[in-house]
């Protein structure tokens, strides 16, 4: 009897898990389906639930509306530059806080921790005014430079360095005649690769999908990143949904495929900071 009860329980648990999984997958599935449908097939009821044959035409229509290749390039440029600078500055800062002794270290680190608690919203208006005074509106600089050295990243890199970088390593390299920069890039940086990949994934995903900052900064279509290009396709009436869904697929698919290939990496990167190492 007990055995039957347990089997029933397991079945119910699986049903719950699978039901939630279907809910999570369904929007993606519908996006793929709709990107292969004609617009009048999308505007029909009941909805089409299987793939159509209009992919090529949707592709042509999409290219008429937005320069998706350019938007893709813009997104890639902004995201890669930002992520690169962020990793460089955060690892430098975290490494210094973890392994060097210098006057004011404690106080500066407290300042750094405090800055993590201030929401950026408080300064958003002066930040925007500053960007326009600098002449940084409609430039990628405004999206890359202001926040590329972030407190969380330094905090996180410091934790990693404390656990993985022995101070004696630097002393040994110094005796061998290496300069500080050589030590950092040749000896320390390779040790930090796991930390780089986790923090890098977090910054990459967030920047790639960011909408609000690009919306405030970027003005002309040739500067648009993917989310902005997507938004520009949606208007009050006469939406070509097949093309829009295909563009959405273009924006979503690269990261989604990367995620499915290395989901453990992504999950640990994107939840970094939540669970103590």
């Amino acid at each position, binding site marked *: 009897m007990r055995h039957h009860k347990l089997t029933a329980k397991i079945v119910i*648990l699986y049903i719950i898990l699978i039901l939630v999984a279907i809910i999570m997958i369904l929007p993606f599935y519908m996006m793929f389906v709709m990107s292969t449908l004609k617009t009048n097939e999308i505007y029909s009821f009941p909805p089409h639930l299987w793939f159509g044959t209009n992919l090529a035409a949707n592709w042509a229509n999409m290219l008429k509306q937005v320069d998706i290749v350019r938007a893709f390039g813009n997104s890639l440029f902004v995201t890669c530059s930002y992520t690169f600078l962020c990793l460089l500055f955060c690892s430098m800062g975290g490494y210094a806080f973890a392994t060097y002794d210098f006057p004011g270290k404690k106080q500066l680190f407290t300042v750094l921790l405090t800055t993590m608690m201030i929401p950026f919203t408080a300064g958003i208006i002066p930040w925007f005014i500053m960007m326009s005074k600098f002449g940084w509106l409609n430039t990628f600089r405004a999206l890359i430079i202001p926040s590329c050295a972030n407190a969380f990243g330094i905090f996180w890199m410091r934790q990693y360095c404390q656990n993985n970088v022995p101070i004696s390593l630097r002393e040994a390299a110094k005796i061998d005649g290496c300069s500080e920069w050589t030590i950092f890039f040749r000896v320390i940086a390779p040790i930090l690769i796991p930390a780089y990949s986790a923090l890098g994934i977090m910054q990459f995903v967030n920047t790639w999908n960011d909408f609000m900052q690009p*919306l405030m900064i970027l003005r002309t279509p040739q500067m648009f990143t993917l989310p902005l290009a997507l938004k520009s396709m949606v208007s009050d009436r006469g939406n070509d949904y097949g093309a829009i869904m295909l563009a959405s697929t273009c924006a979503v698919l690269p990261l989604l495929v990367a995620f499915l290939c290395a989901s453990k990496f992504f999950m640990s990167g994107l939840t970094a900071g939540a669970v103590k190492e």
Partner: protein
Amino acid sequence: MSSVKTAVPVTNNNRNQNAFLKALYKYRVAYVYIAPFFILFAIFNLYPIVAGFGLSFFRWDGMSKLHFIGIENYLNLFKDVLFWKATGNTLLIGIIAHIPILLGGLALAHILNSKLVRGENIFKTIYFMPMVTSSVAISIIFMQLFSNNYGLINWFVSVFGGEKVNWLGGDGSLIKVAVIVMFAWKWIGWNMVIYLAGMQGISQDIYEAAEIDGASSGQTLFRITIPLLKPIILFTLVQSTIGMFNLFTEPFILTNSSWTGGINNGGLTVMMYLLNKAPQGGNAYGYASAVAYIITLFIVVISTIFNKVFEEKDDEQKMAKGRKKA
């Protein structure tokens, strides 16, 4: 330069300065390493935050001279019906959406942690997918799913014998349902993965002891797991609260890029209200700064309340020592 300096009597101030410069030079490597953060933070974060507070006491259109008006911006803000509408919408969406992402996240994590089911990684991966997806793309998809005449959701409604519901139209209030669904859909996996990691960090000994004492699965969840997960739950709560106040993209896209939240301001959120005052739409920079500070205040107050509520009591701290490192 240095010879001149030795000629004059060294004052205290001078000596301090010298010591400071010497320290700066001696430890220059470390200072150079941490400098980028502090310089960039001072220019691009600290200065705007301080300036924003100052600016909130002025009337300024971005071009002409600043007008000092005291706390008038704040008074006007509190008198603005639209601001309260935006606050109400944001809180309503946030509070209702937190039910599925908290309880659902915990329940799913508990199921996957229970050893009765397999395929933990597959389910985790599937639930986490929305977190790597652009909010704009998600919003566009859900806009179609929630569409009145052709949407999948209304098809389900009609299959189960209901009348089609005009989610995105009508009197504008049902748009909040769509936003809540999207918010929950996006965040539940993130919460679940974090809770699961936390659960797997709890020592198995405690569970075995509970099992010997005859505790049921529900009892272990509410009496052992959740109390031990408090710090982690607090973290997710604070994060999603910040996410709630930053809520903008989803209602913005769902209402066809309307800066006022669509019909009857049904989808207006505080972040949208802020951006609509300046720089998108209006030029009320002083007023917008006041709005930004009030939103920040909301976030700080709510986070503090959560911290107080979740403050660990002594006996719980003793129990927490049973946690092994995750």
